[in-house]
């Protein structure tokens, strides 16, 4: 792994309604790397992303970005941080102001980071060119663009301040498959040009595998497994990861069936949070919360039973 860009440690967030959305999550993103987070709804992947963006404050834990502690930054320092840390949201229809042209929306972003007025239009034209729209889109309004075009504009807006990390929260999930492929290729191309790192969050496992260097699997607010994408897909170690990957339509091999729904994050089970749906759970799983431990270089698993000898057990 290269030089660490973002180091988040022991992030925890409990919402006022008692839901423990993120429970002691640590993650590292290196410069120019793509880290994927997968997990089902309610697993805490979006909450984790929102804390990293400092849109939410963590209850506990620390975050360093490019060596600087960012967990407690004040407003003005936060603003300069945000130039380096941007978001491509799931639904561009609701993230663009419908009454501003695409160019004005991007200009708003640039000006809030101190760009001079006279340099704006050249910069906006260049950005829209880079995402394959062309400068003429600057005067268009959000409703005039298709979903795929608008998502390209959202990417242009995210890149306008030359960020080092872009969080893509379900950024391609709303797009048709043929358009999704275009946007995924664009993200890769931009990364090769600029060396930006991505935190890529999606429920679509094939997309995450395709795009990510490393993948983090979350379940009920916790990290249950992490590792290099290709290895994780080839040989998942945690029983939840195995079930998740086998459930993806078109996945090879026999499907591991999970019974029922995930438990409520307001009242998680004792010990291992997955034990209530796990086929290989033993009594100890209810007592002790499994630590994330290294099973192979750069592979970490939070499962008492994930020993190499047991990994192949159903």
């Amino acid at each position, binding site marked *: 792994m290269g030089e660490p860009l973002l180091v988040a440690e022991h992030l925890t967030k409990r919402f006022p309604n008692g839901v423990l959305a993120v429970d002691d999550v640590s993650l590292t993103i290196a410069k120019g790397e793509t880290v994927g987070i997968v997990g*089902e*709804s309610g697993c805490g992947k979006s909450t984790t992303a929102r804390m990293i963006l400092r849109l939410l404050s963590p209850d506990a834990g620390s975050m360093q970005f490019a060596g600087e502690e960012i967990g407690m930054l004040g407003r003005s320092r936060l603003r300069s941080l945000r130039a380096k840390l941007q978001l491509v949201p799931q639904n561009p229809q609701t993230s663009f102001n419908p009454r501003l042209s695409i160019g004005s929306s991007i200009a708003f972003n640039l000006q809030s980071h101190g760009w001079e007025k006279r340099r704006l239009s050249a910069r906006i034209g260049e950005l829209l060119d880079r995402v394959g729209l062309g400068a003429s889109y600057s005067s268009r309004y959000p409703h005039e663009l*298709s979903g*795929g*075009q608008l998502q390209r504009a959202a990417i242009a807006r995210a890149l306008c301040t030359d960020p080092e990390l872009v969080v893509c929260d379900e950024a391609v999930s709303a797009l*048709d*498959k*043929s*358009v*999704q*492929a*275009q946007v*995924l*290729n664009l993200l*890769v*191309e931009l990364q*090769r040009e600029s060396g930006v790192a991505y935190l890529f969050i999606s*429920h679509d*496992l*094939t*997309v995450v*595998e*395709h*795009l990510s260097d490393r993948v983090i699997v979350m379940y009920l607010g916790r990290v249950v497994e992490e590792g290099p994408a*290709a290895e994780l*897909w080839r040989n998942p170690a945690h029983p939840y990861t195995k*079930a*998740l990957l*086998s*459930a*993806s*339509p*078109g996945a090879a091999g026999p*499907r591991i*069936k*999970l019974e*029922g*729904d995930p438990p409520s994050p307001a009242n998680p089970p004792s010990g291992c949070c997955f034990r209530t749906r796990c086929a290989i759970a033993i009594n100890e799983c209810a007592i002790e919360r499994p630590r994330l431990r290294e099973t192979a270089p750069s592979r970490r698993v939070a499962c008492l039973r994930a020993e190499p000898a047991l990994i192949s057990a159903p």
Partner: protein
Amino acid sequence: MSTAVAMDERTLGATLTVDDLKVTFANKRQRVEAVRGVTFGIAPGRTLALLGESGSGKSASARAIMHLDNRGVELGGQVRLGDTIVSALSESELQKVRGGLIAMVPQDPTASLDPLRRVGAQIVEVLRVHGIETNRRAARDSAMNLLSRVGIPDPSRVMRAFPHELSGGMRQRAAIAVAVACRPTVLIADEPTTALDVTVQAQVLELFSELQAEVGMSIIMVTHDVGVAREIADYVAVMYAGRLVEIGSVDDVLERPAHPYTAALVDSVPTPETKRGELHVIPGRPPGPGDTPQTGCDFAPRCKFAIASCMTMPPPLVPVGTGHLAACPVVDGLVPAELAGVAV
């Protein structure tokens, strides 16, 4: 007429046949032809996937089979179920067909279940309206059975629950219980798993297969997901811009596509072998409801195989193999695998 040839190929021994179905949404200002002459049939106990992207007309076709939309909708063509011409029925006769012979599972069960009534009461209502159970008590027992049949672990609790008290997966199971309550001949499922997590999606798809084996119903599965179609369907019908571009067995259509659009759609989904940044893409975007339809092939502006004649005349669906039809005269039956997509 080309439709007649196509009909024979596609409707032999079919339970449900749809012939030259047209759906036009019209208001004072504009007319949108959402479905422009779609013909297919489905055999008993089989599953047909209607595959397409947003705006392709797949949902509009499915809804038109049941005459679900009335206001501002013009329907054309014929829908036949056994000896009944569904498209000629009056509204009151249709009421008996809907939920009885043909039932529907929607994408979003929160929209189809009544939020103000308990789940149990909603199933009991379906059973009694269609005369399956006349006795209230017996209807309750059947409803309970149905809920446990669709894999709800605690049916007596769910009977008393309101829809909002259930998880997404449980709600979709409840909606499926309502749909299969009268043992329909045809079940139409409109993206029934799109809103669900993958592990729950896997459970629900398996449930469809189990219920089909038990009840013997035909299933029309509307989906945008090639993976879902591959998993559940016997036959796949691919729609683009309101027309069928290809139809045939799941293996023929998805493994040996004969239309460039099908080939490109299958190819735009990453596989473990796809190199990063080299996903096959289809340039441009699917036509939207406001776009003027092409005079020729609808896919021609995005198609790398297009030749001059593609721009002038819409290609008919023609047989390219046994029970396999495609609407592309240029590729002549099989899209060369290495040329299907365009790496950009």
